[in-house]
């Protein structure tokens, strides 16, 4: 905490969780974006998180190696086959009258959203507590 690393740690957590919230929003918004071609249909996106361990070179000495920020290494697309719907009235339908809907599991996305928002709140709490602790430390010895 002494070298303000906690802001990097909690900040990386917040940023990773907000990427996750963004992908959830994108998946939910496109849950019904049908396409006439199964290869161009929207695919559910999920971020891949990775822990980036400290280098042990900070003011805390070796204890730095125990701290890890979060990194989003990429966005994985769900390889599940799109859902086939018979909808000949749809202008996007193919020659056989089928449209293809993305394989987005809405329930899964909603639980993902709750999990991401709770984790985000957690990181905000950590930041607030750490900030209060630092401000109190600045007042050390005063009155």
């Amino acid at each position, binding site marked *: *905490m*002494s070298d303000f*690393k*906690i802001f990097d*740690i*909690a900040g*990386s*957590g917040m940023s*990773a*969780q907000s990427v*996750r919230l963004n992908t959830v929003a994108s998946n939910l918004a496109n849950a019904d974006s049908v396409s006439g071609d199964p290869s161009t249909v929207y695919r559910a996106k999920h971020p891949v*998180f*990775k*822990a980036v361990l400290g280098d*042990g070179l900070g003011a*805390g*000495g*070796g*204890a*730095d*190696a*125990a*701290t*890890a*920020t*979060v990194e989003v290494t990429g966005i994985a697309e769900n390889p599940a086959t799109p859902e086939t719907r018979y909808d000949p009235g749809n202008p996007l339908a193919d020659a056989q009258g089928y449209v293809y809907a993305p394989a987005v599991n809405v329930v899964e996305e909603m639980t993902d959203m709750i*999990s*991401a928002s*709770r*984790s985000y709140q*957690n*990181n905000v709490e*950590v930041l607030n*507590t*750490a900030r*209060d*602790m630092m401000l*109190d*430390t600045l007042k*050390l*010895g005063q*009155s």
Partner: protein
Amino acid sequence: MQSVLDNYLGIHAQALALEAQRTDVLAANLANVDTPNYKARDMDFKAALAAASGESDASTLTLTTTNQADLTSAGTLAGAAGGAAPDAAGAAPGSAANPTYLKYRVPLAPALDGNTVDEQLEQSAFAENSVRYQASLAFLNTKLRDLVTAISSS
């Protein structure tokens, strides 16, 4: 090494620094709550404080050192011996690459993705640690105020 002021402030200055370090470790656990294969860690505070204050911990084995370079490895062994008995936080012995007073948590219910962060446990540990930090600060503040009172004539 110990100045008059260090002696006067006692263990609280070292405790404050360690509690700040522990805040980092617990914050990292909370930030990586959704990272696959992340292993939660915590600090064996007793061992860390004993190492920081230079006191030999009576409950751990100590080595007789014949060489100045042995001093660091003796501390390592003492930390590992202390870790053999699981403490209240359920911490396991740490790896050789890291200070031995930093241990991996033994998860109560491991997740399928290999993550061992227990959100509730980490939250309570974080809250406890920040209260301890405030307590150390309060002790230091009192001591410094007493010192100022003693120095000032009126």
